[in-house]
């Protein structure tokens, strides 16, 4: 990832277990970036846009987004992030969810999701997928966010 400024990983995931498993496997892939975890949509949005150390105001970020959240749908967050004029519209969003519904996948890409990954139930595949995602994260370039953009 970008060397001059650490990239924060923002994980929006309502299931603590999933969050823990994702984090563990990302770490196993050798990714040591900061991971901020939020279990609901509102606090995640608040952090993304308003927190002084959040991505909108401070530094590049990469968002891991689950679609099933208790207070809103993940797609609502996706719409907000990718909306015209949003400071975060270039921020990569990786949708990581249990849904493998074709329509849902299409909708997420239409809304501007950068990657869509279905969580495999089988743990080996799950762990492998997350580790591969970690490897992928280690090579992707994340755009620098200009707060006035």
């Amino acid at each position, binding site marked *: 990832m970008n060397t001059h400024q650490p990239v924060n990983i923002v994980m929006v995931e309502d299931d603590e*277990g*999933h969050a823990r*498993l994702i984090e563990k496997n990302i770490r196993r892939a050798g990714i040591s970036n900061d991971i901020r975890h939020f279990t609901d949509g509102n606090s995640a949005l608040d952090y993304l846009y308003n927190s002084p150390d959040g991505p909108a105001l401070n530094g590049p970020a990469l968002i891991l987004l689950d679609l099933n959240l208790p207070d809103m749908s993940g797609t609502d967050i996706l719409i907000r992030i990718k909306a015209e004029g949003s400071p975060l519209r270039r921020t990569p969003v990786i949708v990581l969810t*249990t849904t493998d519904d074709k329509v849902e996948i299409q909708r997420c890409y239409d809304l501007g999701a950068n990657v869509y990954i279905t969580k495999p*139930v*089988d*743990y080996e595949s799950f*762990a492998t997928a997350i580790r591969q995602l970690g490897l992928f994260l280690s090579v992707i370039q994340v755009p620098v966010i200009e707060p006035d953009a």
Partner: protein
Amino acid sequence: MIGSAVAAGWTVMRTQEHARWVEHTYEVEQRIGSLRVMVERLEVARRGYLLSQRPVSKQTFVQTVATEPALIADLRRLTVDNPSQQARIAIAERLTAEQFHLQAASILLAGRDPAAAITQFGLDSSLHLTRQLRIVTGAMEAEENKLLVLRIAAQRQSVRQLFAILAVFGALAIAVAVVSISVLRRYTGSLVEARDAERAMGAELEDRVRARTYELSRANDEIQRFAYIVSHDLRSPLVNVMGFTGELEAAAKPLAALIERVEAEAPHLMDADAATAAREDLPESIGFIRTSTQKMDRLINAILRLSREGKRVINPEPIDLVEMIEMIVASLQHRLDETGTTVTIERPMPPLVADRLAVEQMLSNLIENAVKYLQPGRPGQINLSARTVRNRVAIDVADNGRGIDPRDHDRIFDLFRRSGQQDQPGEGIGLAHVRASAYRLGGLIDCRSALGEGATFTLALPAHPVTSQG
């Protein structure tokens, strides 16, 4: 009606009879008139001859006399039924004969001595005879007139009768017409009522069917949504169970290694319980958790697939069944060769318009089952055929495998239910899926089988897609 018609006919005949009698009377009267004219004419002719001795008068006399016998004969014949007239005719005949005699003598005398003849004329009884003849013929005429009056009256009577009968007949006809019209009207009225009632019933039935279809499709949608949400939401915790089981397994490994090391390097620290836990209990528990969660995952996936299949848009297209079945059989060739199973495809197969994917999945499931559940020790034989039954295409998948207990024929189509010996892998999903798809396409699936005697699954699909679908 018939009675009055017969009566009318009879009366008409009687009227005709009366008319004939009236006519007859007129004829008789005419003859009587002729007779009277003849009498007068003879007298006139004689007198004329007496006065003028012109031969024409004598000739007229002779000619007129000649008509007498025929006239009398006619009268006799015509009045043969009337004795009084017959008597009068006899009198008239006698009188005329006498008269002729006198007149003839008088004419002959006039030829020789006219003066003597005139004198003789004043003396003879011819005037008296003529008067008598007038009386007789007058009586005859009176008789006939009397008869005529009677007969005309009779005729009028019968005509009146005829009119009365015709009036009755007419009244009857009108009554019959009125009755038949009212019966007809009542009949058509009840027909119209019945038709209206039927229409109303049909409309009501249609409404009910529509309402029921709507309810059903709503219930179906609800079930679909429910299945989707449940299966989806069940997946999430399952990821955790499996994930942390994996973590546990991973964590158990260094623990087991530590136990090994302790046993090797410091046996006095060795605890039998800890050793069993690390070597046996932990791996065993983890193994059970893992197989159970895997099974649960497969079941959830099956529900999800079913609900997804239910939501899929059906796209009917013409299907070549033979080609499709050949493809399915080809994809199973490896297993067929392994088990020595032969497959017969009966050609040709009727055309079918349906959703290709759904039909292919259903047939694959049925054929795979046929290959899967063979009777041990008997080489498998699978026969595939299709026929048109009214507006449906019935596809038979018949095998000689182990068969299905008739008690289980309904059960096997239920989700997660299986029948017979559980020696083959499977979750009891295939046939449930086949039935759901068949229903969705407006078709039916049916099983005929006995234990140990093979099974025939019949998939009956509409030859053309049903227009209304829930």
